[in-house]
């Protein structure tokens, strides 16, 4: 059984590194500041106890007031999973650091989020539309999207 | 050596019209028409045969709706292709684009000029028959290259490059594999070679046949050497931009080549028209059919090699073996001309087996480049 690591466990394990970055702690994950995501991701990956070395999935969601990006990690050795969340309040020009430097598995998923939700990931080697064509107007998964002409 | 070049002198005295007044022209007419109609007719049959056979290999029926047993399938294909629109890409090299199919097709037909269908019954009994075949057969590669180059298409250029590399490499073992036969027969004329085969040369020269068959598979671009067409890589290869009649010519060339090389294999190694009871031409066609079916069998079974593996196979495996074969054969012929056929054949076979075993020990499959 893949057991979820609770937010408290992670905060406990990474108390020093996480100082000030955590916004709130949930049952299966933590919500962190967007600017600090790179440091935190590195911490959870390299921490000997956590060893969250496998990036499973990145989901972007449009919650009218803000955009949320949630990262799901596994630890293949310990059979654990863990969720990191980031909220972006600036909906007109959302941007956050890219995780491609740590997991290249993030490359296509971040492009997908850029394409469908319009979040720019700084530091991504190839930040352009992935599914839709250049010149497509809008981002389909935004709730205010109409049709794209 | 003027008599080598004069075709008139090459008419066999066995033929009834050899001493007629316009015998030479009548000869040309009869055999010219004969060869072309036989070739085109057999192409139609052999394409049908291949499609039916491949069908059977794949546990299905194959074409059976057009005409009885689907025999008219190729006729339907020809009618359709010939009446299709003929497209010339706007950025193609028009002149070369036009000539390429002709350059590819003509030599294939010419090769049959020196193949006997019965004793002395051939268009030109050149005493350099084999040399003629080799010289002519390389021209097809030029046609294919011209087609690939002139099409102004990236896939066809890649295919053209592969053509040159592959055909030039396999020309070497193909020629050298026939040298053993020539040494034993003591003649370059195909008519004489067939006549000396009281025992088919495949028994005397199993290694020679092995090399010849593999090299000719590469020459006619059949699996596992079908890199020029390489459906799954290069889409359609050198003829990607051709449509209508010109494409039909290439399609025809491909099958004619297969038939002609089956003919050569039958003539040089399998005793040509020789055989009991049946008329000579039937024996020849039967042997061609057997070789062709074997080619089809290989086509429907094996995957394709990569370009560097294809080249490595020619230069590192086939060429040394061919040279070894010539060496051993000439020792036999020069020192012990009285050697019985079975001993000679057995020695040859032993060399072939030992060589393959030796080479397979060195062979490491996989990786970026061929490793031996």
């Amino acid at each position, binding site marked *: 059984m893949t057991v979820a690591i609770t937010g408290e466990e992670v905060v406990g394990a990474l108390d020093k590194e996480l100082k000030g970055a955590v916004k709130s702690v949930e049952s299966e994950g933590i919500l962190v500041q967007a600017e600090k995501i790179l440091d935190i991701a590195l911490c959870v990956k390299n921490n000997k106890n956590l060893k969250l070395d496998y990036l499973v999935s990145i989901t972007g969601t*449009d919650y009218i007031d803000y955009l949320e990006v949630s990262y799901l990690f596994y630890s293949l050795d310990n059979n654990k999973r863990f969720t990191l969340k980031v909220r972006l309040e600036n909906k007109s020009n959302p941007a956050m650091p890219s995780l491609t430097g740590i997991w290249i598995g993030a490359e296509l998923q971040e492009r997908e989020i850029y394409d*469908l939700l319009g979040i720019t990931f700084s530091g991504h080697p190839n930040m352009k539309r992935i599914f839709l064509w250049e010149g497509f107007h809008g981002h389909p998964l935004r709730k205010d999207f109409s049709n794209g002409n | 050596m003027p008599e080598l070049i004069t075709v008139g002198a090459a008419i066999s005295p066995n033929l009834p019209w050899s001493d007629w007044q316009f015998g030479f022209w009548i000869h040309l007419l009869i055999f010219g028409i004969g060869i072309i109609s036989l070739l085109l007719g057999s192409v139609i049959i052999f394409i049908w045969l291949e499609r039916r056979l491949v069908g059977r290999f794949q546990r299905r029926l194959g074409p059976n709706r057009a005409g009885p047993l689907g025999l008219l399938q190729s006729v339907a294909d020809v009618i359709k292709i010939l009446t299709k629109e003929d497209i010339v890409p706007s950025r193609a090299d028009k002149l070369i684009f036009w000539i390429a199919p002709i350059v590819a097709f003509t030599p294939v037909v010419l090769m049959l000029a020196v193949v006997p269908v019965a004793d002395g019954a051939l268009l030109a009994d050149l005493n350099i028959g084999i040399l003629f075949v080799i010289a002519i057969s390389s021209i097809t590669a030029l046609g294919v290259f011209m087609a690939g180059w002139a099409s102004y298409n990236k896939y066809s250029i890649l295919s053209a490059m592969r053509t040159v590399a592959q055909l030039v490499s396999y020309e070497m073992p193909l020629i050298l594999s026939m040298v053993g036969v020539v040494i034993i027969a003591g003649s370059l004329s195909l008519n004489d070679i067939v006549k000396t085969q009281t025992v088919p040369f495949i028994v005397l020269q199993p290694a020679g046949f092995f090399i010849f068959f593999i090299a000719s598979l590469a020459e006619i671009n059949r699996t596992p050497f079908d890199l020029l067409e390489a459906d*799954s*890589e290069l889409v359609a290869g050198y003829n990607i931009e051709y449509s209508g009649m010109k494409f039909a010519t290439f399609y025809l060339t491909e099958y004619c080549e297969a038939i002609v090389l089956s003919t050569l294999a039958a003539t040089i190694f399998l005793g040509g028209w020789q055989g009991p009871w049946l008329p000579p031409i039937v024996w020849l066609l039967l042997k061609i059919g057997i070789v062709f079916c074997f080619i089809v069998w290989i086509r429907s079974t094996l995957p*394709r090699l990569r370009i560097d593996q294809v080249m490595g196979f020619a230069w590192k495996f086939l060429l040394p073996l061919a040279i070894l074969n010539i060496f051993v054969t000439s020792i036999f012929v020069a020192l012990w001309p009285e050697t019985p056929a079975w001993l000679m054949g057995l020695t040859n076979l032993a060399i072939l087996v030992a060589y393959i075993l030796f080479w397979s020990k060195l062979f490491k499959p996989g990786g970026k480049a061929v490793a031996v």
Partner: protein
Amino acid sequence: MAIKTEPILLNLGPIHPSTHGVFRMRALVDGEVITDIEPVFGYLHRGIEKLAEQKSYRQFIPLTDRLDYVASMNNNLAYVTAVEKLAGIEVPERAEYIRVIMSEIQRIISHLLGIGSFFNDMGTFFTPFFYMFIQKEKLTDLLEMVSGQRLLFNYMRFGGVSHDLPDEFLPALNTFLKEMPAEIDKYERLLKENEIVLARSKKVGILSPDMAINSSASGPVLRASGIEWDIRKADPYSIYDRFDFDIPTGTVGDCYDRYRVRVEELRQSIRILEQAVAGIPKGKVLNPVPLRFRPPEGEVYSHIESNKGELGFHVISDGSDKPYRLHIRAPSLLNLTALRKMLTGWKIADAIIIFGSIDICVGEVDR
């Protein structure tokens, strides 16, 4: 002295015989060698994730069929389990058994096609492909018996499956299970030790274990690199914890290993099917759920080991009858992450078979 060469830009796809649908690679080639390559996606982007937000939970089931259309039952299963987890719906035991049977049949179909088209890419003239298709057709008949469709089944429902198995199904499946191992042995005799297959696929397109983990590869691609990670074992969903099977792994992570892993998985699937057929209980197959049901507010990520890898559904509910957001973690897309690194430096012919050995389904890549 090096010859000065000019690289050319070669377009492989989207209409190309061996890009398995409408995938496209823009390759910069120097002669035959690929110096750089960029996969181009989106030629089958149908906006399934957006359509999910416009349809009710149950209306979305047929759309999941069209993700990985080679194995649509698996997509059904992944989606249905996700929503069941979200709403806390119980599934009858017989239905769980049926789900496992369907999922494994689909895995066999998908792997047969994957292996077959891999050899097609290698240049065999359709023969292995058609041999495997004969077996695939037998399974398709079985699935048709159950669902009435041949490809896109729309069979699973929240709380079970849409209807019970017909009486002829289990005997027919048993017959198939008896003859299938011999068929696999036949393929093995033909292909496993073939010199050309070895020469083409051994040590070609190696994906190292570190790279495989780092690039979020999953399924046979990950296992071929030597990592023993199978969600059926690691996080058993449905009733997979009751079955006895092994996780085949590769050692090198080359094309040959990926092919071997798929063949071994065929055998393991047959093992699971045998156990499932032997143990299937009687009973009802569906705990009815209202047509327009509203799961509670919340979010859930649920995953299954689909034939291509980890297929996950991230469903976010706002309490209404439509999903607020539905994200599909598509294994085909993520297995392609490392494609660029795997292909650079290889010849065009290798690129085709490396791509073929990853075995993607464009419907799932682009969604």
